[in-house]
């Protein structure tokens, strides 16, 4: 009988420890990851725009140049220039950032959508 109580107590102790470890060391929430990723994606696009390497390429739909520029900063990404709608990506669980460009030398708005994972 005494042995059974010890076993129950040991199980309770183990359960308490496991629950507390799971609660305390839970992974950072996905929303925070996504926000950080979105901010870094926007920063990269803004940097490329500021340094004159995005606007003209986007206006001429030069996706190869845009991808090559982005590859210097990002590893897992896809990008598209949306015309009427954005076609999206086949990957699941991605963070998407829209970057707008008013045009290049003339007004012709463009939406660049960057997907990151």
């Amino acid at each position, binding site marked *: 009988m005494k042995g059974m*109580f*010890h076993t129950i*107590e*040991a199980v*309770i*102790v183990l359960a*308490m*420890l496991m629950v*507390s*470890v799971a*609660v*305390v*060391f*839970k992974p*950072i929430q996905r929303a*925070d990851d996504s*926000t*950080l990723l*979105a*901010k870094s994606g*926007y920063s990269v696009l*803004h940097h490329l725009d500021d340094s004159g390497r995005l606007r003209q390429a986007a206006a001429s739909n030069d996706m190869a140049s845009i991808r090559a520029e982005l590859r210097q900063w990002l590893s897992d990404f896809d990008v598209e220039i949306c015309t009427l709608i954005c076609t999206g990506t086949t990957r699941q669980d991605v963070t998407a*950032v*829209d*970057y*707008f*460009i*008013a*045009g290049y*030398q*003339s*007004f012709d*708005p463009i*939406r660049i959508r960057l997907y990151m994972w």
Partner: protein
Amino acid sequence: MKGQIFLAGAALMVVLLVLIGSAFNAPAEIPASAAIAIQADNIANEYKYAIGLSAADGHDDLFAMSGYFRENVLGFDSIYALIVTDPSGPYRLTVGNFLRGVIDVNVSATQSSPQTISLRLADKERANWDFSGTGAVRLTINYTLQNVVRSKTLDFTTYSNQTIGWSDIGISSDDDRIRRDGVRTVTRQ
């Protein structure tokens, strides 16, 4: 008695783990509105770029751009003003309303004729006024939307060949609203 000591020890370890966890796992200090804030920064920059385009092509590109963002960005609204000065003639003021409601606009301008103008602008509507002015002008735009009065003052000189643009954009989400206000002056060639 041995079992109770184990339980007490486990409780102590739980407390310690919670303390350690709270020290190392502090939540990231990122506002929930970060997503719309970066989009607002992007759009505000593009308004400034479009003021440059308007100066170059002589058109009011801000009107078309405001319409574009209203169509493509959820919760977007804006108001803008464009002033085009000409040393040999009157200066022109354009105000565009994309604030999702009717606004009452009152414009007052020093060293100018007329000195004041009042008008009601519907959503997605713009209006132009020509002023004859001499020298340094202080132009104040007051607008009222749903009993809230806002004001913007722009300073310029009529002897210049300039395009002065101002935009006040906002993006609203369910629980937040971000605004960006910007002015750019471009001297035309």
